[in-house]
Every structure is written in C-alpha cells, then in structure tokens.
C-alpha cells in the first residue's frame, strides 16, 4: 500500500528450514524489507549492529544463547525496536519479566502459528508499530483461573481482553464483537479496573492487561 511505512525486519532463527520459510514470508510481503537473517546470538548481534531494523523476529531457543535475553539487551540500546518472539514451547511467561514501562512492542508467537502468513505478518506489523500481539491460538485455550482477578471478569469482558491481547485495536474489537467502539471502551475500562491496571491511554497498559492472561490464565492440557 502506498503511503504506509516499510518495516525493516531482521530474522534470528537457527533452523535453516524455518529460517528460509520465515524469510520467504517477509520478502514476499508488501510493506516489509528483510534486512538479513541470522542463525545465532553472535550472528544476530553483528547483523543488528550493522543493519538498522524496525522489528526483530527472534527464536527464543538459539544454539549459543537465548533469544529473549538478546532482545532485552538490544532494547536497552534501542528502546523503539519491535520484537516478535517465536518458540516451539509455550513460554509466553517470558514477557512477564519485561519491566512495566517497556512492554510495548513485544509480541509472542508459537512456531506453529508463525507458519500462518497472516498471523506472522500481523505480529510483525503490531510490534513494528510499538504494539503487541500474543499468539491467538495459545490465547484461545486460555481460561480464567479460579481465585485470580481474571475470574472476576464477565465472559464479555474476558472476550474483549483476549481480542486486545491478540493485538486488535478498539475499532477491530468492536467489529469482532459486533458492538460499538464506545461499548468497547467501556468494556475495557471495566477490565482495567478489575485487573488493577492503570489506563494511561498508552500501549503499555494494554500489554499489562494482556499479560494478566499469561499470569493468571490456565490452559487446557491439549493446547500447545
């Protein structure tokens, strides 16, 4: 689309097959430029230092270290860079250890979801814009845990929270739930109040609310 910014992407993935698949998706997609693909932490550091990127697509498990730790250190130097974490495990909890004020721009996808072009592109776009997206498939199996703040949400509030966590804007949530944007605002305000999240109108509070699903959500035995 003309007028839209082009996002520069760096891929860090150790498995050659997976790396080439991810590279193909990014290359083929309008609005993205692939700056390079690395296969290890050391490789990635070199690449990130030499090529300016808007978003990193990172495997968490790398042969010489941990993609999450790498992303944390890159974000220290360049707070604006978006990060999409990929993992074969469901380790969304990693995002819980990101400090409150720095949570915008982090997304998380399971490797399986990353094979869906649409999901991968949506996550890259969300993170590059400073937003956040948690894996929709993983979120689908999340249920509120008894005794947690999540369990106090109404089913509609819980649904809205899940859509928010998937990276949807209020307008998109409104479309998805077939309600007005105003109703979405009200629903999410109620969610923030129940979860004790301060709504500063910024992306951080959206991510903070979304992370309640990770902290206090239970997943069914058969989910990833």
């Amino acid at each position, binding site marked *: 689309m003309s007028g839209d910014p082009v996002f520069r992407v760096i891929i860090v993935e*150790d*498995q050659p*097959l*997976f790396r080439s*698949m991810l590279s193909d998706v990014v290359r083929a997609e309008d609005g993205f430029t692939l700056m390079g693909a690395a296969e290890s932490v050391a490789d990635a550091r070199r690449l990130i230092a030499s090529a300016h990127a808007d978003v990193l697509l990172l495997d968490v*498990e790398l042969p010489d270290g*941990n993609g*999450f730790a790498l992303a944390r250190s890159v974000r220290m130097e360049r707070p604006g860079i978006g990060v999409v974490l990929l993992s*074969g*495990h*469901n*380790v969304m*909890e*990693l995002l*819980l*250890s990101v400090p409150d004020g720095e949570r915008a721009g982090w997304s998380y996808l399971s*490797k*399986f979801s990353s*094979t869906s072009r649409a999901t991968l592109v949506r996550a890259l776009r969300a993170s590059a814009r400073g937003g956040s997206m948690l894996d929709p498939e993983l979120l689908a199996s999340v*249920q*509120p*845990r*008894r*005794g*947690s703040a999540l369990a106090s949400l109404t089913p509609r509030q819980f649904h809205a929270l899940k859509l928010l966590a998937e990276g949807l804007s209020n307008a998109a949530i409104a479309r998805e739930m077939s309600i007005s944007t105003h109703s979405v605002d009200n629903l999410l305000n109620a969610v923030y109040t129940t979860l004790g999240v301060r709504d500063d109108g910024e992306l951080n509070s959206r991510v903070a609310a979304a992370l309640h699903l990770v*902290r206090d*959500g*239970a*997943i069914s*035995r*058969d*989910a*990833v």
Partner: protein
Amino acid sequence: MPAGPHRLSARDRRDDLRMLLLTSGVLLIAFAVGSTLQTVFVYRTEHLVLSELTEDSPLLGERLSVNLIAVLVVLLVCAALRLTERPAWLIAAVVFALSVVIAFARHALQVAVGIYDHPLIEVSAVEIVTVGVVIAVSVGIGLAHVKTRARLREKMRAEADHRLRASTALADLATAEMRVRREVADGLHNTLQGRLVLIEARIAALARRAADDPDGSPLHAQLDELRRDLGGIRERDVRDLSHLLYPVGVDIGLEHALRVLIRRVPPEIAVSAEVSPDAERLLDESGGAVVARRIALVRSAEEGITNALRHGAATTIRLTVVVEGTPPRVRLIVEDDGSGPPPAPEWNGLARILERLDLDGGSVSLRTSSLGGARLEVDVPA
C-alpha cells in the same frame, strides 16, 4: 611458593621449626632443671628443707644457669640452621656435632664458673657423654615428633584434596548430564518440533488445495485428520518427552519454570507461585549443579501439585520459594487445602527426587498445612 606434597609452604616450615623448638626445648629444660636438682638430691641424703636449698648448695644458681645457657644455645643453633628443612644426613651430622660441641662447652663453662675444680677425667667424661646423649635424644625426639606431625598433615591434606576432587568430578558430571539433557531436549523440541511444524503446514496447504477441488473433499478430511494427529504428537508426545528431560523454562529461571508449570493446572484450581527475589538470585547460575537444583525444585513442585490434585482433592495450591538460614538454603513449599498428607505417604515420585536431593545435601518433609491439606517442604543448599 605453591604448597604441595614435596614443597612445603612457608607457613608449614615455620610451624615445623616451632614444633621442634617446643618439643626439644621442653625436654632439654626438663633435663636441665632435673639434673641441677639431682645434684642436690644425690649429695643431700638428709631431710631436705626448701629454704635451706640455696644455702646448702651455693652453686645451685650457677649450675642452673649453665644448663639453661646450654639449652638456649642448642635451640638457637637449631633455629638458625632451620634444622627441620635440611636433608636427613645433614640433620644427623648437625645433631651429632651440636651434641659434642655443646657438651664440651657446657663442661668447660662449669669448670670456669667453679662448679668443678680440677675434676677427674672420669667425672668430666660422664658429664660430657651424658649431656651429649641428652641433647642428641631431645633434639631427636623433637625431630621425630615434627616428622610424625608432617606425615599426618600430608595425609589430611591428601584426604581433603581427594574429597575436593571427588566433589568437582561430581559437579562436572552434573554439568555434563545437564548439557546432554539440554541438547537432547533442544533437539526434540527445536529440530524435531520445527520439522513437524513445517510438515503440518504443508499438509494444511495440501488440505486447503484439496478443499478447493470439488472431488477432493474426502481427501481434505483425511489430510486434516492427519495434520491434527501429527499436531497431537508434536504438542503432547514430543513436548512431554522434552519436558521430562529438561523442564521447560528452567534455563530462564526458577520462577519462570514454575509459572510454565502451574499454567497447566486446571482452571478450577486456584494455584499461585511466589518466588522470593533472593531465591531466584541464589539459584541463578548456569552451572550444572545449580541447574540440577532448579530442576529438582521444579520436579518437586510438579510432584507436590500432582499429589495435591490426585490424592488430596485440593482446590487451592500455593507454591512459595524462600531463602532460609545460614548458610542459606532455598526452600520450596507446596501447600494445599485438600485432605492432607496420607497416614503412610507413598513417596513414589518424590523418592527419586529425594535420592538426588540427598546426594546434594537437600531434604524433603511432608506434614499438615495451615490451609488444611498437605504441606510439602523441599530444601536444597543455595
């Protein structure tokens, strides 16, 4: 200078010399005082009155002084020559020479101060030979004592060294085991899972194509089922195997691994995990032994949760990890509100963990919780 079995440290050498001077010194002084008093006892057969002692033996002071001077000279020579550090032949020669020279010198001094006035040659010979033998024996005993002590010290050090080597070997073994486990687990969930994911994606693409084809709908259903089966194998079997080898998230930290663990507890159960920052910090190394401790704690938590749910019918489970005591120990507490610990608990799963923990200086206890159910406590050295 490095300490070793053949090269003694400066501290050991000082210690050896001090021990020689002390042992030989005590013996020589005992002889010196003893022989001085002996002259009084031998020559006075009558009842001895202490106040008359000096009066009756006018040269008692001189006798004692000459003897003590002789002792002092022997000890000074031993110290100056650092006798304990010399080879055996030199020690023998020095002790012999010292005994002879000091024995003669002492007797000469005795004559000079008037203890003896033109003594008979036999008397002089007895004095000299006796004193020579006393010096040789005293220094000899001192040297023997030093040697025995040094041998004991070497033995203790060798044992300590052996223990250290054994524990280092054990730690190396733990590191190697963790590395292999991690590699196998990584291979399972990275390489194998990754390939399976890609195969699933290709089957999904084929299924979509089959769905578009008007004749392909039975094929589509079969392909979709195949994809689901494959997904099931990938998600459950491969993940479980990998988790069994190396719990998910244990590399990142204890709290992370516990959070990954409790997420799988059914939503009807109120489960919480609280890890104190101190505990997280103390178990934050990537060495094999520390990772093994984190794994042991995660496994214990898993066992505690399983027991609470399976046998205790719990609805609330609380996991806490704290640091206690000096030296610090990391303690995991799994409490629940279920039916409490069974009268004769079966330690099936815990037995293996306990065995491992025991090797590592850890311990396990099971009692009644303040929540009404069971309270499992596992602690490991930090």
